[in-house]
């Protein structure tokens, strides 16, 4: 449908004519003829998108790599779980404790490192830190070392 017509004089009709734009390479051709090279405008949005995509791809690749490594490292456990799904809970408990132990060891090492640094810096008493980390490690070792009756029953 055509829009509603307005009364226009010749002058107004001509004055209202739009300006057209030449093609996108217009400037480049003129500037080249004058001996200048136009650098393409830096597209901030595109650069940001590319950066985010690359970072996300790196993280994804790293995560996939770790996942595959874990799968291969624990392939036997995974196969066991597939055959006996009821052992999943026990296995999760086992790995949770393993992680806790590893975490405790890390904390212990860090505490020791801090203690040593502080000792030589002369500002912090090393003994409380040693005591805490030792207690944590002892608890974790005790828990993990205690035989699990459920696992034994499942393995029997």
């Amino acid at each position, binding site marked *: 449908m055509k829009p509603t017509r307005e009364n*226009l004089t010749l002058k107004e009709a001509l004055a209202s004519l739009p300006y057209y734009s030449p093609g996108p390479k217009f400037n480049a051709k003129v500037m080249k003829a004058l001996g200048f090279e136009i650098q393409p405008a830096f597209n901030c949005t595109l650069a940001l998108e590319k950066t985010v995509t690359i970072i996300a791809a790196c993280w994804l690749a790293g995560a996939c790599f770790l996942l595959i490594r874990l799968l291969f490292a624990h392939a036997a456990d995974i196969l066991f779980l597939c055959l006996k799904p009821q052992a999943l809970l026990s296995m999760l408990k086992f790995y949770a404790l393993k992680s806790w132990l590893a975490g405790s060891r890390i904390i212990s090492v860090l505490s020791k490192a801090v203690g040593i640094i502080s000792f030589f810096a002369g500002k912090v008493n090393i003994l409380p830190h040693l005591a805490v980390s030792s207690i944590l490690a002892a608890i974790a070792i005790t828990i993990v070392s205690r035989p699990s009756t459920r696992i034994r029953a499942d393995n029997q």
Partner: protein
Amino acid sequence: MENTDHPLIHRCLANDSGAFEELLNRNKNQIFSFIFRLIRNPEDAEDLAQDTFIKALRGLNSYDTSRPFITWLFAIAHNTCVDFLRAKKPQMLSIDDENTPDIADSPDSTRKTVELKLQQEETEELLTSLPPLYSEVLLLQFREDLPIQQIAEILQLPEGTVKIRLFRAKALIRKKIELLKNR
């Protein structure tokens, strides 16, 4: 416009490429539209517009700063178009329009102020139907809002000749509108 173009022109004369590009961006749509409405072919119009700016920016040393820069650009654009039409389509340089009755037979149309109902598309079609030498004076006066004196400088014609062309162009376009309405 002329006051803001002069600092850019000085920078251009100092070979500042940014100034060249800014001058180009300020004026390219006006010049391209003017040429396009005369030549009626977008590819040719773009080539001619590029030639216009290349000639203008290369010849900036010869630009007289007492004149508005856009006037100088339009003069170069006009000459470029005339050279093109003379070489490729010499029939377009004729001011005779075979599709319209002789203006002299209609004494009333030149004096009346006619209320015209025009849309943009109709205006473009009417301009296209006129000989380029008439459409350019209409564009320069009504679209670019230039005074007769500057139009005369651009077209390198006496002011009297410009006035006559404007008079005939307006009469011609009004006649064409009447023909359209009477169909």
